[in-house]
């Protein structure tokens, strides 16, 4: 029978876990990058025929998740983003945290309180603009979206890793 020393066994286990965790986070980062690239494609490649021809289809796809009101969307390089400023913020926040998570492989905890706190500025902004306390501002919407999006991504990542990646060890 072949015995593996206990410290080697643990280090191999941790190494395996970290590799799985990193692979999973990398997949999430690539997926999110593709998603963000989709709603920015017209602005990033304004003169590409392929990007122009894909715009009507991309508009259909992003219409499912956003109202796409042009007065609430950013305009760059002759094209409006496919999603509103708030959604741009949410996805950007998620992308930033997914990028950071590639380098900081800490085990995240499922913190509902953090998620609720991150949602407060966005809820206040939505209520304030809807009731007319102050008028809609794209930068406010973007910033509150980034804050909320980053917390949501961290929470979802924690839930998935704690329930799927850890169990597969």
């Amino acid at each position, binding site marked *: 029978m072949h015995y593996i020393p206990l410290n080697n066994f643990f280090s191999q286990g941790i190494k395996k876990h970290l590799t799985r965790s990193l692979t999973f986070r990398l997949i999430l980062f690539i997926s999110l990058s593709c998603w963000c690239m989709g709603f920015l494609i017209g602005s990033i490649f304004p003169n590409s025929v*392929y990007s122009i021809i894909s*715009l*009507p289809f991309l508009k259909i796809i992003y219409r*499912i*998740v956003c109202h796409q009101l042009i007065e609430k969307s950013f305009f760059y390089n002759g094209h409006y983003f496919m999603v509103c400023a*708030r959604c741009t913020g949410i996805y950007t926040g998620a992308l930033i945290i997914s990028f950071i998570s590639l380098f900081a492989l800490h085990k995240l905890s499922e913190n509902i309180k953090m998620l609720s706190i991150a949602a407060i500025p966005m809820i206040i902004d939505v209520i304030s603009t809807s009731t007319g306390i102050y008028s809609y501002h794209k930068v406010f919407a973007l910033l509150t979206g980034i804050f909320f999006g980053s917390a949501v991504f961290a*929470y979802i990542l924690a839930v998935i890793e704690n329930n799927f990646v850890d169990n597969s060890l």
Partner: protein
Amino acid sequence: MNQNKLLPSLVCGFGAAVLTTVPGVKNFACCLIVPTAAVISINLDHKINRSEFPIKAGQAILFGVMTGVFAALFSTFFDLLITYLTRTNDFIEALPQTEDFIKQYKLDSLLSETMIIFKQMSKDINSYGFSIFYAFAMLVSNLCVNVIFGMIGGITGMSFFNKRKTKI
């Protein structure tokens, strides 16, 4: 999955599809509608079927996927119905702008084919209120996006309800 298990996803998927069709509601919640529907469907299942805690990850994902699928089917139906009644939609309205832009370039054969398909879609919708290609594109995109967002809602709901139950 028996009929009682399917009911919460069906109800919540229908609700999500209705809410995504109503423009005013969509302005507030946007991308949170389908994930919220998945969370509610898990809660409904536990109230109707008195399922056991903790909720298993596979079960939560299944509820998320089913809610996403039903939301996609109903929202495609609503979209096609509105397109049939109005004989226009966002796609048709955006097409002339795309066409103008594309005229500036020399297109290769593949892109020319794509433009022909776009024009055929536009013609079908303007004259019959329905285009099979548009319906297919709508269904596929709705399914892909809603299933992913439903799954996110499902796993978030699982974590939320399991935590709440352990606190009680």
